[in-house]
């Protein structure tokens, strides 16, 4: 099967869709590309050898940005944010400014690099933990995320439950993110959540709040793997075949602004990985005079098909 598919822009045009920004509600902060894992599906090619992490000066600029524009949600991601020594500083100083603060964790970093201090700071500030959990199967998980990762993630989930995360009435939210462990589309969110809830509780007594199912993004290390395994063309064709025009309305790039580890603005974390600056213009967070990006054009490329396949990536 060939990858001769229309460009994402052409497909939007064909469906008479224009992808413009809405008012920005979510500030996504990429704390760096340093990670304890080197997952095969990572769109940022994060890993233990990456040195790029957000420094304290940029963190202060991000906090000022939040203070100035009062985004509703702050979404902290990486790499493994836990490996940035300034994570506690960020959480302590940004919490309370938005309605919600989320921390995206690969769980093994939370298990290996988290001390009681970080956990108590996360709990005190009611930080929502969004954890990668691709599969209930050890072989599938370890093949995507590294040997021994499945066991560590299970132990981390048990630990988080013991601290009250995912438990009713604690106000400590624990969400799981499932990505396919190969070149295929994700299962429905509803079915995945139902199964995760049943099996995780039955086998390990683990509870959580929500599950999200997302397609893998054909960028970075995942793109390299797709090419190496001769799956790239078929995968892109599959994403294109499943283009859902209705998913465009709620795409996260419409109401989210992503800040890279060095302080530059992107329409989303995937464009960050693709080096597609917001509106294709390189703007540093310290230089922006506004957060009102409403009606600004969103930079797109063919990786965007991963966000519009099936029910979409919101």
């Amino acid at each position, binding site marked *: 099967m060939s990858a001769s598919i229309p460009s994402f822009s052409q497909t939007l045009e064909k469906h008479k869709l224009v992808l413009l920004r809405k008012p920005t509600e979510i500030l996504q902060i990429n704390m760096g590309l340093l990670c304890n894992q080197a997952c095969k599906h990572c769109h940022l090619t994060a890993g233990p050898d990456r040195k790029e992490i957000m420094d304290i000066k940029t963190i202060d600029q991000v906090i000022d940005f939040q203070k100035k524009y009062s985004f509703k949600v702050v979404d902290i991601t990486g790499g493994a944010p836990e490996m940035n020594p300034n994570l506690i500083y960020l959480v302590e100083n940004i919490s309370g400014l938005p309605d919600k603060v989320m921390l995206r964790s690969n769980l093994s970093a939370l298990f290996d690099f988290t001390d009681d201090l970080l956990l108590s700071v996360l709990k005190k500030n009611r930080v929502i933990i969004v954890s990668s959990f691709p*599969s209930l199967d050890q*072989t599938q998980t370890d093949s995507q995320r590294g040997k021994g990762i499945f066991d560590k993630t299970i132990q981390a989930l048990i630990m988080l439950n013991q601290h009250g995360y995912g438990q009713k009435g604690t106000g400590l939210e624990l969400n799981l993110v499932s990505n*396919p462990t190969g070149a*295929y*589309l*994700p*299962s429905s969110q509803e079915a995945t959540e139902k199964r995760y809830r049943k099996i995780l509780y039955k086998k390990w007594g683990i509870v959580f709040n929500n599950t999200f199912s997302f397609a893998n993004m054909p960028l970075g290390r995942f793109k390299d793997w797709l090419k190496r395994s001769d799956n790239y063309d078929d995968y892109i064709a599959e994403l294109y075949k499943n283009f859902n025009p209705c998913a465009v309305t709620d795409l996260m790039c419409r109401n989210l602004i992503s800040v890279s580890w060095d302080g530059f603005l992107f329409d989303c974390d995937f464009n960050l990985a693709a080096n597609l600056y917001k509106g294709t213009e390189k703007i540093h967070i310290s230089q922006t005079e506004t957060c009102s990006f409403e009606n600004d054009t969103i930079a797109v490329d063919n990786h965007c098909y991963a966000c519009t396949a099936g029910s979409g990536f919101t």
Partner: protein
Amino acid sequence: MDTYYKPDDLLKFGEIGKDAPDLAKKFFDYYGAVFSEGELSEREKSLIALAVAHTIQCPYCIDAYTKACLEKGSNLTEMTEALHVATAIRGGASLVHGVQMRNIAKKISM
């Protein structure tokens, strides 16, 4: 024609409706209804389909339902077990006819 089976032909399945649209519509509506969530989950139905695909040895179905099983959250252990169920029934179906063989042999032997 260099081969009877071409992977891309799977994508042309819908074309079967061109010369008998009413029947095709009935079939595809039924097909869609069968595989939607019921008392059995879509994941469980895909595992059954995968096992049946191996029994009838349909390369299109094996291709489609291997992918469907993975997409619905199954793993290779579960998929292989499903195949063994099909294999056991298929093998068992041969072996159980051995009773018929024994009955006939008994009847005509001294």
